[in-house]
C-alpha cells in the first residue's frame, strides 16, 4: 500500500490516466484502429514487467518505476515545439501540468528510496526506448 503522502499524486494521476485512455479511444475510433488485438511482443514484454512488479515489488520500487515511465514520456515530448500535425500530442505531454505531476513523482521517489529502485528505473527506460523503436521499425 502506498504511504499516505503519496495518495494525492497517485489519485490525481489515475484521474488523468482515465482521461488519457478516453482520449486514445476517441482517436482509435476516428482512425478506425482495432484495439482488440494481441499486443506486440515489445508492448507485451513491457506490460508484463510493469504488472509483474506491481504484484511482487515493494512500494518504493514501484514509485521509482512510475516516475521512470512518466519522466521518459515528458522528456521525449518536451523535445518538440507544439506545432504541426501532432501539435495536440506534443502539447499534451509537454504541458506544465504534466511536468508538475512528473516532478511530484520524482519527489516521492526521493522521499522513499530503495536500493533496487535505480535498477528498476533503468529497466523502465530501456523498455520505453524499445517501445518507440517498435513503432519506428514496424
Amino acid at each position, binding site marked *: 500500500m502506498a504511504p499516505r503522502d503519496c495518495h494525492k499524486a497517485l489519485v490525481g494521476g489515475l484521474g488523468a490516466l482515465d482521461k488519457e485512455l478516453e482520449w486514445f479511444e476517441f482517436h482509435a475510433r476516428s482512425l478506425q484502429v482495432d484495439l482488440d488485438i*494481441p499486443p506486440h*511482443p515489445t508492448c*507485451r*514484454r513491457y506490460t508484463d514487467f510493469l*504488472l*509483474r512488479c506491481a*504484484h511482487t515489488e515493494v512500494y518504493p520500487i514501484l514509485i521509482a518505476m512510475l516516475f521512470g515511465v512518466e519522466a521518459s514520456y515528458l522528456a521525449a515530448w518536451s523535445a518538440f515545439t507544439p506545432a504541426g500535425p501532432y501539435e495536440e500530442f506534443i502539447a499534451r505531454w509537454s504541458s506544465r501540468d504534466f511536468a508538475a505531476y512528473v516532478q511530484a513523482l520524482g519527489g516521492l521517489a526521493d522521499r522513499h528510496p530503495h536500493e533496487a529502485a535505480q535498477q528498476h528505473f533503468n529497466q523502465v527506460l530501456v523498455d520505453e526506448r524499445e517501445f518507440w523503436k517498435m513503432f519506428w521499425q514496424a
Partner: protein
Amino acid sequence: MLHEMLWNSNLDLVQSCLAHPFVQALGDGSLSANLFRGFVAQDTFFLRAFQKAYALALARSEDPEMSAVFCDLIAGVTQELKVHHAYATELGINLQNVVPNSACGAYTDFLLRTAWHTSLAEIVAAMTPCMRLYAYLGGELVRTCGLQHPYRRWIETYSGEEFQGLADRLEALLDQVGADRRAVRDGYRYALECELEFFTAALML
C-alpha cells in the same frame, strides 16, 4: 481436446525448439559445459518463478482434486530443482543471486503477470507449453542418448514417466478449466515463443 488443438496448432514453434542448435547440441552431447552451466542457472531462476505460478494457480482453485494436482506439480518442480542443484554442485554453478538474461526475464515476467493477474484458464494455458515441450524434447533426445552421454540425467528427467505423467495431468487440467478463446490461445503460443527465445539466449552466455 483443447490441449491437442493448442499443441497441434503450434507445431511450428515446437519443431523450431527441437531443431534449435542449443537443443541439438544438448541432445548429441556436444554442448559445452560452460553453456550448460549458464543454462542451468537461468533455468533455476525460471523454475523458481514457475513454482510460484503453480502456487498462485493453486490459490485460485476451489476444487480439492484440482488443488491436489497443483500440489503434485509443485513437487515436480522441486524435483527438477534438485536435479539442477545436483548439477550445480558437480559443475560449480553458482545458483545464488542469478541475474536473469533478457529472455528469461521476459518469460518469468509473463508467467508471474499471468499468474497474479489473470484467470485459472490463462495461467494453465501459459504453463502447459513448458511442461509438454520438455516432455516432448526429453522423449526425442532419449532415443539417441547413450550410457556415456554427459547430459544423460537431464534427458532422463524429462523423458521419464514421472515428468511425462505430470505433463499429462496439466494438460487434463487445461481441458477442464480452459476454453478455446483468444487469451488462452495467445498465452499458449507466447509461452512457446518464450521457450524458443530461452534456448537462443542460452547460446549467447
